[in-house]
């Protein structure tokens, strides 16, 4: 089976700065993938590489088995909603739909019109006069009516108010349920992703920190709480992601395929948010160490 997104050692450099570096990912189809990371982590870069707006500086990337934007047909398989959901301000909603019909061979005109109707939008209204939420919905409609096999969304809800955010994600979930479409959705907020995603990629400091199915990630990551001490006696496969000490107590977030049986630790389940924050914290710590060591060398 072909992967939705298959990257090997993928990197993108702007001048001397790597926006994305040594990214190796293999995301199977059929998932709703949350791509999470702090601002500037490389999420947009990765998505733009995936849709062919950018070309890699190193490594390789295939989307549904083909190079991004290699042909009109390939572009037709991908629905893309860019950050801040750009639309043509001077053109009406109806013209946007006509554009979709003219430029996409698999365009589903009925679906598009139905959605605009359900959203209560006037087709003659200029896109520049829509609210943020309505514009996002229009952008999503354009992406969905292409009948893509893979839907890529770059921070689609970041600028929306909570109500519009909820409606947008609800629409997205309805689409996923109705049409068999894989989704990659980026956000810097875990809360947005928690409800809709079943697969997670954490991107921070231009590197993939962790990725996998959420259920599996949650079952292989544990929060250990015990009296203050060093973290030895853990199984060989265990990796410590984050550790914090108070005067009396040590708390650690650990990745381990094997169960932690040491009775000295009380093992707790971990939330998705904690997991993401632990990996983002680890990346940030490494970044600071790097900066400090460079500074020290001077």
């Amino acid at each position: 089976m072909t992967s939705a997104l298959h990257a090997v050692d993928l990197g993108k450099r702007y001048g001397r700065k790597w926006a994305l570096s040594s990214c190796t990912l293999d995301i199977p189809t059929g998932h709703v993938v949350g791509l999470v990371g702090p601002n500037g982590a490389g999420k947009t870069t990765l998505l733009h590489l995936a849709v062919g707006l950018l070309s890699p500086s190193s490594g390789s990337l295939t989307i549904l088995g083909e190079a991004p934007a290699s042909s009109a047909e390939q572009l037709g398989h991908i629905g893309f909603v860019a950050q801040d959901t750009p639309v043509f301000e001077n053109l009406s909603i109806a013209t946007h739909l006509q554009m979709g019909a003219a430029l996409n061979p698999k365009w589903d005109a009925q679906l598009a019109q139905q959605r605009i109707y359900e959203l209560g939008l006037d087709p003659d209204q200029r896109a520049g006069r829509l609210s943020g939420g309505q514009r996002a919905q229009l952008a999503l409609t354009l992406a969905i009516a292409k009948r893509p096999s893979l839907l890529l969304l770059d921070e689609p809800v970041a600028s929306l108010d909570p109500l519009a955010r909820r409606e947008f994600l609800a629409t997205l979930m309805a689409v996923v349920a109705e049409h068999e479409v894989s989704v990659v959705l980026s956000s810097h907020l875990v809360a947005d992703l928690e409800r809709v995603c079943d697969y997670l990629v954490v991107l921070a400091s231009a590197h993939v920190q962790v990725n996998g199915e959420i259920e599996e990630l949650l079952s292989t990551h544990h929060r250990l709480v015990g009296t203050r001490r060093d973290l030895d006696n853990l199984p060989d496969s265990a990796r410590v992601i984050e550790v914090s000490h108070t005067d009396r107590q040590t708390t650690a977030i650990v990745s381990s395929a094997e169960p932690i049986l040491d009775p000295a630790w009380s093992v707790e389940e971990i939330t998705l948010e904690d997991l993401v924050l632990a990996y983002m914290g680890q990346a940030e710590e490494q970044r600071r160490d790097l900066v400090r060591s460079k500074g020290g060398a001077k």
Partner: protein
Amino acid sequence: MTWFAWRQFRVQAAIVAGLLVVVAVICLFTGPHFASLYHELKTCKAKGDCQSLRNSIFNGYNTYFPFVQAFSLALPVLLGMFWGAPLIARELESGTYRLAWTQGVTRSRWVFTKLTLVGGASMVAAGLMSWMLTWWASPVDTLNADRFASLIFDTSYITPIGYAAFAFALGVTAGVLWRRTVPAMATTLVVFLLVRVPFFHFVRPRLLAPVRVVRSLKNVGNIGFERTPSGVSFVAGDTNLPNSLSFSTSVVGRHGGEVTQQWLHEHCRSLLQLGSPAPGKGVKVTTGIRPKAFTACIDKISTTFHQVLLYQPPNRFWTFQWIEMSIYVVLALLLSALSYWWVRRRIA
């Protein structure tokens, strides 16, 4: 794709079309009248009638020239600024390229379609404008007998098509390099002028080797002397070559050399003693008011000196039109190729 490229371009196209309609109305309302005046002039007998006909033709055109001619002269660069520069820059600037280039159409085709559609429209618009002006102004252009003059050569016939193609491609290129519309428009204007002005000044007269003619100074109008701070110098101004592009004129002696102060001092002593205008004013003495000493000196000069003319003759007019248009079209194609390549490879 063509439909959508046209849809995005519609408003800009309508504005220019509106301006062309205004020009067309002016031409259609006044052109036949001027043509009939010209026809009368061709057949007029009485000298006074002819002069008044001439005057009414010139005065009539002068009412509209500031608008019509200036518009034809400016149209190419305006098209470059308002059609070319925003063509891709606006998509990049507003972020809509992320929507546009992720539809089921490759980026290459998107750019190619826009380049050909709007670029073609630029050439058509400039061509229409030029065609209207050429038709409308043909009586006065014939009377002026100066087809190589910049205001005629550059605004009529086929050169405007080349300028429009060039300005458009320049605008597109500036747009993709800047990725912003306003600086791209400014760049288009500046670069266009930096190419166009030196081109017509220095390159055009040299496009073909000029014809060389040596003729007697007796046939030359507007001949005389000019008082300069250092004395008096000889002037032979008017080339009197209708519909030609003068390259250079000079007065050369039979054995080489020019009419120098020294020569005048030796041969035209009486001339130098003339009562004359205030020194340093450089007032010209023309053949119309020649005193005896003047005529005598001109005759002396004519026996040993000739006027040497280098110029492009009238029968080269169309050759020059074609050469100049082709050069600008080739520049346009090169710039288009550059911006096409840049969008494909560098904006990534």
